[in-house]
């Protein structure tokens, strides 16, 4: 007696099974939604060794950079070398960033609070951004001789800008990025001209603390001081545009007279906005609203306190944040 279940597949049947299995395996590895593509890109930017030539356009100016990104054990080293204009370079290790200006013989060391470094910003918790941004997949397009999946992120209100990412289908690295205003005008664009992945970098490639020209460098450290609650003034925000929340609260010194300025950094995940509160500021008549490319700023003066809000967000966002700032002096009782 022959059992139906014991029948072995014919060669054609094996082929179908093989194709089905291969398709399923591919589907397993291929991101299926816009947010999955973005997370895959975020991971690739951190974990892949790559060298790229990048053209970056903003404020009617194009800059080109060579970017080297290498992972060595737990440490990630990165170099961004400017290819046009005066020689300069940004080097990043796990927790510090060094900006080198060889012609001036100077280097500035900045502490880094977030260990990851990304060519383009992609927040980690995308689900939390759903109320403010709509994520969807676009077409497959060809960029830098590679196939790219377009991911569209549209702002749900007029308080933030729209974004487009072209993510390489093979490496998941960003091949192109655009920041658009609400009318669709491109405000900022990044395009990879060449990309080499899985490069083996030797130590010399990613060496830190060396001046590329071999000259001695004057190294200064830029160290903002965290603001403590209950000291100086407390800064509160009333009725801010939805989704923005404080990320950091610091004091920074600036100018020849080393004036202390309070600096609160706000973010909605994608867009960041800085709020500056300068006290004991003499009478002035600053232009309240200013624009520089995609950056808008709004300044208002209350008695001797100058409140300035700026960021890569529309004018209405900086204006509303400026009017939501509430400063309460902390008295020493």
């Amino acid at each position, binding site marked *: 007696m022959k059992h139906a279940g014991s029948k072995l597949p014919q060669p054609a049947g094996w082929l179908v099974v093989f194709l089905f299995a291969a398709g399923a395996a591919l589907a397993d590895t291929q991101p299926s939604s816009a947010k999955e593509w973005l997370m895959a890109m975020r991971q690739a930017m951190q974990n892949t060794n790559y060298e790229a030539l990048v053209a*970056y356009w*903003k404020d009617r100016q194009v*800059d080109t*950079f060579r970017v080297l990104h290498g992972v060595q054990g737990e440490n990630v080293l*990165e170099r*961004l070398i*400017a290819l046009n*204009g005066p020689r*300069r370079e*940004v080097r*990043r290790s796990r927790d510090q*960033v060094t*900006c080198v*200006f060889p012609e001036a013989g*100077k280097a*500035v060391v*900045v*502490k*880094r*609070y*977030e260990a*990851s470094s*990304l*060519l*383009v*910003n992609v*927040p980690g918790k995308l689900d939390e951004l759903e109320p403010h941004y709509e994520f969807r997949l676009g077409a497959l397009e060809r960029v830098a001789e590679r196939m790219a999946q377009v991911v569209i992120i549209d702002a749900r209100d007029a308080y933030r800008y729209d974004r487009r990412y072209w993510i390489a289908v093979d490496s998941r690295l960003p091949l192109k*990025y655009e920041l658009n205003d609400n009318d669709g005008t491109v405000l*900022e664009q*990044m395009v990879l001209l060449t990309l080499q992945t899985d490069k083996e970098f030797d130590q010399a490639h990613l060496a830190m603390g060396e001046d590329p020209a071999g000259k001695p460098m004057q190294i200064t450290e*830029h160290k*903002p001081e965290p603001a403590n609650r209950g000291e100086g003034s407390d800064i509160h925000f009333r009725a801010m545009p939805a989704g923005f929340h404080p*990320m*950091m609260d610091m004091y*920074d010194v*600036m*100018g020849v007279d080393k004036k202390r300025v309070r*600096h609160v*950094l706000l*973010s909605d995940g994608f867009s*960041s906005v*800085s709020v*500056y509160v*300068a006290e004991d500021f003499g009478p*002035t*008549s*600053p*232009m309240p*609203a*200013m*624009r*520089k490319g995609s*950056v808008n*700023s709004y*300044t208002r003066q209350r008695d001797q306190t*100058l409140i*300035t809000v*700026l960021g890569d967000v529309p*004018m209405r966002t900086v*204006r509303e944040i400026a009017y939501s700032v509430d400063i309460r002096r902390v008295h020493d009782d």
Partner: protein
Amino acid sequence: MRDDPDELISSLLDNELEPSTALHLMQRAEADQLLQGRLRRYQLVREYLHGRPLPPPRTDFVERIALALKAEPTILAPRRLPGQREVPWKMLALAASLCAVAVSVGYLAQEDRSRKEAAPQLAETGAPTTDADELLVHYLEMHNDLSYSAGTQGSLRYARLVSHAPQ
């Protein structure tokens, strides 16, 4: 070669003029008040057409006319003699049209001003001119530094700005 001042001004504003001709035109405008006024008017029209905010018009237009009239010597017009030619209607029509244009331009400028007052003052930043402007440049650098350090901004924006502002 283009000699018509209107054509030259138009080309200058379109960035289509040879540098030497542009320089010559600007030198002429420095000495020639009429040309200067014409240049300014062209610029205003162009700005208006491009939707850029216009500077507020002078509000003392009527007063200035009144003052100018007051400064004029009073001339008693002689009585028209029989057979003397009347003012041609064509001239009156032209004068009326010019008045209408002046009123329209005034209205547009006034309307633009009221729109501008409703909206915040907006300026493109260039080279810092005041302490407040200079402060803004520092703020932009600090914003860039902290946004990158906090991981809310990509490395390219940071690399661009630090590269333009060596400490």
